[in-house]
């Protein structure tokens, strides 16, 4: 089935582009340590809020040259009471590829020093400018993407088994079990999901390691979504539970749990795949919203949402538009996931005409 879906995806023009874009994004995130000129925690306080580095390929004599850049220097303009950023044209910093830069551990294991793109040790190559702490926005986009683009998937892998089993049991047993279980699920659904999200996030104790916090946010995201999913699964189980093959399984003495897990739930497979691909984007959006408010991933870790936190200040969004780049990446990623999800639904559910 997977191969069939993939074949159909490649046939659709939009879905193909979306697949390629997502593939590139994930590849870049996988190789983040290598592609990024700086490590996640590198900061140069003298470089706070410097604009993107200007890269020159024509030198001062008007001749073609190897690409080079100048550092910025911060000057205080006492007339207009503003900080200005000027190029320090006294020293050229040539851009080097595959050269030695800051040491890092590739994927956290292999110690390496080479970076795809870097410059002299005293030069600063900030392709997308720097943030308030003088950290490279481009590097942090890559590291932040690792969190933003995986958290949704992880939440789904926690949520779907819960939703499947919950809906399966409620639907199969029926009667009072069903009533109680569904009332509870409806109650969870009756709390506006974003309210529930911020409240759950706010009770997380401070002083956790970033890994613990990441895992807990995954669990919180899962806690929001399972109820709606369980309700749909229950509906589907109700419609198949009296079919002959279920009765056959019953008559040969299969246990109830086995019937639910082995015979009934597989019937919901195509719905699950469609629902999963279509809900990845909403989890990416939830995480970024949460981090945007300061309740999700915390500094010094990066995620696309908490990088956008700086965009809450007017001065930032007007004078430092490069701080908005994570927003465009979220947009592209979500759009790509939506296009793929739509195509997968068309393949698995040919009657659906939502698209």
């Amino acid at each position: 089935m997977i191969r069939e879906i993939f074949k159909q995806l490649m046939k659709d023009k939009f879905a193909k582009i979306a697949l390629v874009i997502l593939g590139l994004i994930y590849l870049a995130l996988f190789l983040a340590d290598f592609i990024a000129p700086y490590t996640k925690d590198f900061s140069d306080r003298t470089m706070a809020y410097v604009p993107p580095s200007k890269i020159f390929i024509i030198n001062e004599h008007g001749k073609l040259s190897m690409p080079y850049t100048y550092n910025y220097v911060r000057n205080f303009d006492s007339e207009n009471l503003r900080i200005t950023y000027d190029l320090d044209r006294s020293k050229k910093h040539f851009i080097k590829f595959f050269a030695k830069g800051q040491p890092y551990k590739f994927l956290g294991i292999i110690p390496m020093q080479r970076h795809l793109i870097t410059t002299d040790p005293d030069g600063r190559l900030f392709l997308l400018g720097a943030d308030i702490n003088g950290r490279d926005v481009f590097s942090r986009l890559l590291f932040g993407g690792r969190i933003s683009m995986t958290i949704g998937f992880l939440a789904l892998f926690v949520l779907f088994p819960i939703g499947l089993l919950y809906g399966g049991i409620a639907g199969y047993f029926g009667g009072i079990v069903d009533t109680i279980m569904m009332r509870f699920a409806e109650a969870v659904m009756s709390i506006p999901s974003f309210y529930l999200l911020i409240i759950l996030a706010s009770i997380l104790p401070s002083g956790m390691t970033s890994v613990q916090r990441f895992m807990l946010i995954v669990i919180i995201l899962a806690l929001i979504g399972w109820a709606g999913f369980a309700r749909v699964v229950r509906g589907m189980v109700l419609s198949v539970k009296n079919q002959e093959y279920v009765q056959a399984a019953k008559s040969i003495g299969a246990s109830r749990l086995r019937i639910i897990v082995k015979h009934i739930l597989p019937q919901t497979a195509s719905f699950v795949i469609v629902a999963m691909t279509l809900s990845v984007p909403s989890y990416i959006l939830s995480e970024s919203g949460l981090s945007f408010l300061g309740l999700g991933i915390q500094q010094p870790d990066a995620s696309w949402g908490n990088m956008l936190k700086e965009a809450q200040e007017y001065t930032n969004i007007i004078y430092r538009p490069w701080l908005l780049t994570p927003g465009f990446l979220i947009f592209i990623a979500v759009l790509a996931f939506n296009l793929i999800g739509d195509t997968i639904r068309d393949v698995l559910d040919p009657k659906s005409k939502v698209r």
Partner: protein
Amino acid sequence: MQIFIYILKRILQSIPLLIIVSILSFFIIRLSPVDPLAELRLNPSVSQETLQKETERLGLDKPIIVQYGKWAKSFIKGDLGITSNGEQVSAKLKERIPNTLLLTTIVIALTWLVGIPLGVAAALNWKTPFDRILTVLTSIGMAIPSFFFAVLLLIFAVKTGWFPIGGLTSSDFLEMNFPQQVWDISHHLILPVTVLFTLSLAGLQRQMRANLLDVLDSDYVKFARAKGLSEFDVVYKHALRNAINPMITLLGFEFAGLLSGAALTEYVFQYPGLGRLILEAVLKSDINLVMASLMMGAIMLILGNLIADILLIITDPRIRVKA
């Protein structure tokens, strides 16, 4: 008569739901290690008596079940306690809920006014360039993070100066006459409404399009065509009525989604609504306020679903018969 019995039944059904919601939220909030009165204790303008009264009202020295009982009792009485600034929670809610309702009602009305005709138009022009362009546009609308869109619109407002930046009223609101006040509020509403409108239009348009396509495929529509009805009669007299019914069920969901989406939008635009209230309350760990606004959110959501159900009974006679 039958309709009234059904509506009454539906209202009664939502009561146990609210009780479960309240238990759930109460336990979640009490899970937090924060002292619910910590802020109050630190606030010098709050007297010792008020503190004592709050401790007693919440039963903080008793087990959690008793605490819940006490909370439920005073909630039913309408006593929601005080915020960490010493204000009445109920006064605060009274001030904020109408603002959120105003925002969401305008957005729902607008999305229906625009989304339904666009959905119908797309279905009638299925697989034409018009339909495809609409699909692309709605995909884009669905993918913009609401808070990011809000930030972008703020830049626009700051740069052009065409729109006020945040809030719901200007500082000299009280000195204006009535038409000026109406204009002032609508001027402030334009940007938040634009954000939420873009967010929810896409879903509505797609659903309407899908519904109408499904109905146009059904036998009775083929029959209506076969007996020689004009295309106008087929679509607008027969197909549309059935295609709209599922949309009414969706109305409840849309309302839920808007309440959630509005929280972030309200936060960015500094709009004085329920979503921003709960956010501020959460950040200050103001437990009374969090609990009360959580319940209000749930009540609004349940009411929204109830209204959708009642509308459905009115438009769809089949449900009346079943009930």
